[in-house]
């Protein structure tokens, strides 16, 4: 199957300064891909490049197997973008905004009316359709912009910081909508964000970008394994381990590293496959195990570890 997005050594410079620097990755159909990075990392530039709004300085980007630099028009027919600012015509009623964009995306005239009504209802804006978005709250504007991105039923959606500036409740409802879009319709989604918690909740795979460089790419578990080499396992014993027991554990061939804190043992093994052997070793040495927990890294830990490695 052709990947939905395939990027190879993609580079874009502005006045000699790279905004996107030798980036390579691919996104498979149906995936929710999160692009994480601080301000100015190059996220928006990457979305523009993928939609053919910018000429790459080097490398290639293909979307649906088409070259983004030359076939932008055909790509944009099948993508929907939630831009960083809602980018609405604030002086035109909500319905007129949607009607205009529906026409621009080539939605047939006879389908447009019902489609607009359906989306306004879905986003709980049906009572405000004739009002101008100039007077909407940020959350409402964001939902209207989401409706606009979905008018033409795009297969690939780009969300550029969809919850920035929203209060926690509005942010959560936008996040829920994104999750629903992915779950119910199997759309491919690329989510740009600097909100780690949001990425953790929504994304199956993550790319961490900073100063235009893609520093890490994979599922959170893959990233953790690459970053911390091996799996740390937290073992709780009762009674607390004796010196002999600790020596015995350190002597086990599967234990690469061992740390002690009271009744807790933290042992690094090569992979989760070695956990049974580690438990057997501890039990054989007379340890009484209460709890075994393979350590999972939060996206936040991953993110900061990656950024730290860079500086």
């Amino acid at each position, binding site marked *: 199957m052709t990947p939905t997005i395939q990027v190879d050594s993609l580079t874009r410079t502005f006045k000699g300064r790279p905004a996107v620097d030798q980036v390579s990755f691919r996104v498979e159909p149906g995936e929710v891909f999160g692009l994480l990075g601080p301000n100015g990392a190059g996220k928006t530039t990457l979305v523009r490049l993928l939609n053919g*709004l910018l000429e790459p300085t080097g490398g290639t980007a293909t979307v649906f197997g088409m070259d983004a630099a030359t076939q932008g028009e055909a790509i*944009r027919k099948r993508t929907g973008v939630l831009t960083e600012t809602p980018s609405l015509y604030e002086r*035109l009623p909500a319905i007129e905004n949607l009607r205009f964009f529906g026409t621009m995306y080539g939605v047939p005239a006879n389908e447009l009316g019902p489609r607009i009504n359906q989306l306004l209802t879905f986003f709980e804006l049906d009572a405000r359709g004739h009002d101008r978005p100039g007077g909407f709250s940020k959350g409402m504007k964001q939902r209207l912009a989401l409706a606009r991105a979905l008018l033409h039923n795009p297969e690939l959606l780009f969300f550029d910081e969809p919850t920035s500036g929203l209060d926690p409740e509005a942010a959560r409802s936008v996040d829920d909508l994104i999750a629903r879009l992915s779950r119910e319709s199997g759309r491919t989604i690329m989510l740009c964000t600097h909100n780690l918690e949001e990425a953790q909740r929504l994304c199956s795979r993550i790319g961490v970008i900073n100063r235009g460089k893609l520093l890490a790419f994979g599922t959170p578990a893959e990233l953790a394994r690459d970053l911390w080499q091996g799996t740390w396992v937290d073992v709780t014993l009762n009674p607390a381990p004796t010196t002999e027991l600790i020596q015995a554990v350190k002597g086990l061939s599967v234990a690469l590293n061992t740390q002690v804190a009271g009744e807790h043992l933290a042992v690094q093994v090569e992979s989760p496959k070695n956990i049974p052997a580690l438990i057997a070793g501890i039990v054989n040495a007379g340890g009484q195990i209460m709890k075994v927990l393979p350590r999972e890294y939060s996206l936040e830990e991953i993110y900061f570890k990656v950024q730290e490695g860079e500086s």
Partner: protein
Amino acid sequence: MNWRIIRAIAWKDLQEVRQNRMAWSPMLILPIIFCIIIPGIVLVGGPSLMASDPNAGTDMMDDMQMLMGILPPDLAAQIQGMNGAQVVAYFVLALMFAPMFLIMPLMTSSVIGAESFVGEKERKTIEALLYTPASDRDLFFGKLLAAVVPALLVAWGSFLLYTLVLNTLGWPIMGRIWFPTPAWLPMMLWLAPAFALLGLLASILISSRVNSFMEAYQLTGILVIPVVLLMVGQVSGLLYVGPSLIFGLGLVVWLVNLGLLALALRVFSRKALFGASP
């Protein structure tokens, strides 16, 4: 070219302009001044002033004799046999003010052009527009249409109003339907559209360099200069703007437009818009 898209953009832009009083109020005020107020002063106020000063008429006739000597023959033929009040009306309304009817479409189109091209940049709405599949060319021509149509409506609407006012208020002086004079039809049908497009293209090109509507608005004011020069030339008697000069001038403006259009099409591309530093 996708006509449905071009029409949608033009329609959307016009609805937005309608909401921006800054953009459309000049289009309303200028025609009222030039089509009603000034002709009223010249045709009603002028003669009554002359009537109160018995010498004015004779002075005028002396000046006229002198004028006839230096006027281009075409023009002299036109005012042959007119009395003082008729000559004044003819000079002021049919000659001096003619360039105003070029300035009006030029201003209208450049103001709407600035509003629709820079306005979108300024309000950051252009981004969503550029993410649509509409081609650069369709976007461009939609916006062009949004500015040219009202400019021509303003120009031709004002011209009709002017004709009406000049012939009714002028009846006591002229005693006949005297307007439009021969130069006006080619001016309104050939030169005015050329100026409307000139104003628009210039404002689009200026817009691509600036980031606010006010800046673009002020810069396009420069365009009025050639028209003012034309006016000065005419009033000073250096040149008579007759049908042949209008045709020639129009040809030049249309050719300039062609060049500007090619340039504007190149400037107005997604990749140029985003590639440029904000």
